[in-house]
């Protein structure tokens, strides 16, 4: 409990740092001492606070989406980017952009979520059809499925001259976050709270279908709730800031090693560490070659792939 409070404190400190780092000069002291003409306060309210909130919300909710996915698929390497969910969501977003461009962003998100859910269910069906002995085959199958969906999306985007948008959805970047353009991420935050409330159900479902039925729960219903949450979070993040790779994989695995998988305990940890990870990577991307920015997706991709390799190799030696 004390360790968790410490982690929350680290997150708050990082959030403050994130508020202070940026290209535009923001005289904090002037603002605090009342000499400011409103300029600094405006930057804070329009750009810095939204960006920091977006980082925290996206980081926490994507990490929790990864955790739920791992419980539902019952595989440590499952997460939205290794199960076709992200690719299906961006395909959905592409389709709705072409078919109904005037739809409000909430509607687009829901359409993307529907596609994401369909893609994930397809993945679940594939897993049922192909008996896989090696746990590492599960994410490989998901990545293959994602590749196929992404190829379809790329073809359509190419035809409709929307490759730029597709790239933006698949590459997380917070530099465009302003007030009025990130609020959808609160949907993700809300769903993360739902995940905490339903945490025990997800843990039970993570024990398997027979366990779940034995304890009097409807397995299919829990699975559906979990996958709906994952799809909605994924599409909310994609629509607003773009995909953050590896996040849902690394954070739950690190938490699993330290506090285990009982989701009632793991959810707050996963949320806080997810936010910390994304905040740190974003701050890093902003200061490495200031005044220019490295997109968050790139920073996370580099850091994340190294950590992913470590996890895979560790698992291998652990299993042997």
């Amino acid at each position, binding site marked *: 409990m004390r360790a968790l409070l410490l982690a929350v404190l680290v997150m708050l400190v990082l959030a403050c740092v994130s508020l202070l780092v940026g290209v535009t000069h923001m005289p904090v002291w002037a603002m605090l001492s009342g000499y400011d003409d409103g300029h600094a306060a405006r930057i804070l309210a329009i750009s810095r606070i939204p960006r920091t909130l977006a980082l925290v919300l996206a980081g926490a909710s994507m990490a929790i989406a990864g955790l739920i996915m791992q419980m539902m698929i019952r595989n440590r390497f499952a997460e939205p980017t290794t199960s076709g969910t992200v690719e299906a969501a961006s395909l959905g977003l592409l389709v709705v952009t072409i078919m109904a461009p005037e739809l409000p962003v909430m509607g687009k998100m829901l359409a993307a979520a529907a596609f994401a859910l369909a893609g994930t269910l397809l993945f679940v069906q594939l897993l049922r059809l192909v008996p896989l002995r090696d746990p590492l085959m599960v994410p490989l199958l998901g990545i293959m499925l994602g590749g196929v969906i992404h190829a379809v999306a790329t073809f359509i985007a190419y035809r409709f001259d929307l490759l730029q948008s597709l790239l933006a959805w698949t590459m997380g970047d917070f530099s465009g976050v302003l007030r009025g353009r990130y609020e959808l991420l609160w949907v993700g935050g809300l769903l993360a709270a739902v995940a905490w409330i339903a945490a025990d159900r997800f843990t039970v479902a993570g024990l398997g279908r027979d366990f779940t*039925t034995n*304890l009097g729960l409807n397995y299919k219903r829990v699975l559906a709730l979990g996958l709906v949450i994952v799809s909605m979070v994924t599409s909310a993040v994609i629509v607003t800031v773009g995909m953050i790779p590896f996040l849902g994989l690394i954070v739950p695995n690190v938490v699993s090693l330290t506090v285990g998988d009982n989701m009632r305990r793991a959810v707050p940890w996963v949320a806080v560490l997810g936010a910390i990870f994304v905040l740190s990577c974003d701050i890093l991307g902003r200061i490495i070659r200031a005044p220019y920015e490295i997109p968050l997706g790139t920073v996370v991709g580099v850091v994340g792939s190294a950590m992913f390799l470590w996890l895979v190799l560790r698992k291998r030696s652990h299993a042997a």
Partner: protein
Amino acid sequence: MIHANEVTKRYGDAVVVDCLSVTIPKGGITSIIGPNGAGKSTLLSMLARLLKMDGGSVTVGGLDVTATASDVIARRLAILRQDNHLSARLTVRDLVTFGRFPYSRGRPTLEDKAHVERALAYLDLGALADRYLDELSGGQRQRAFVAMVLCQDTDYVLLDEPLNNLDMKHAQSMMKTLRRATRDFGKTVVLVLHDINFASWYSDFVVAMKGGRLAAAGTVDEVIREDMLREIYGMDIHVHEVAGRRIALYYE
């Protein structure tokens, strides 16, 4: 009392359990025996509503398992299947606490916690309670799973090959624990067993299956007999009386 009425399960053309009717008495230990592929595990899964029946019906203590709300059944009957592979990392206490899920829906009360501690003590898991399941030996893990189904505090406990992975010492202690549970709490324990001598020694009632059908059902004296066993297993099995119990020899 568990009553199966003309229960049938098919996979494509293959009939795994064929119109089987049997009544398992309340109280004591009932063992289901039979050769590989006789449909024992399939029957057990259908008794516990884990597997959909293609025909027939099952009542447990008067409740139809497919028509009654699943959480009501979960407070009446608990089942543990074999090879319980977990990818989730849980402590023994976490797992056993989930046995209380049908009562408290994940918000364990003080009473639930008392149940958990009692189940841990009952299976001698006190020292291992805060260890993660993936750090335990196969036998310890098996005991943790059994502690969970006992913690579910149901009148009926169904176990599919609970002696798998257990050495002689732990197999014996598992059977003694189960027998104790039937006497202390009046539970009805139904087991699928491969070792007919464990079945003979500890059972109050034996159900024998062959080819998806009922081959015999009755007390140990009625079922563990040379003519019966020859018919069930298709081999010569000598039955000897040792210390007043029936022991089958089939090693040569």
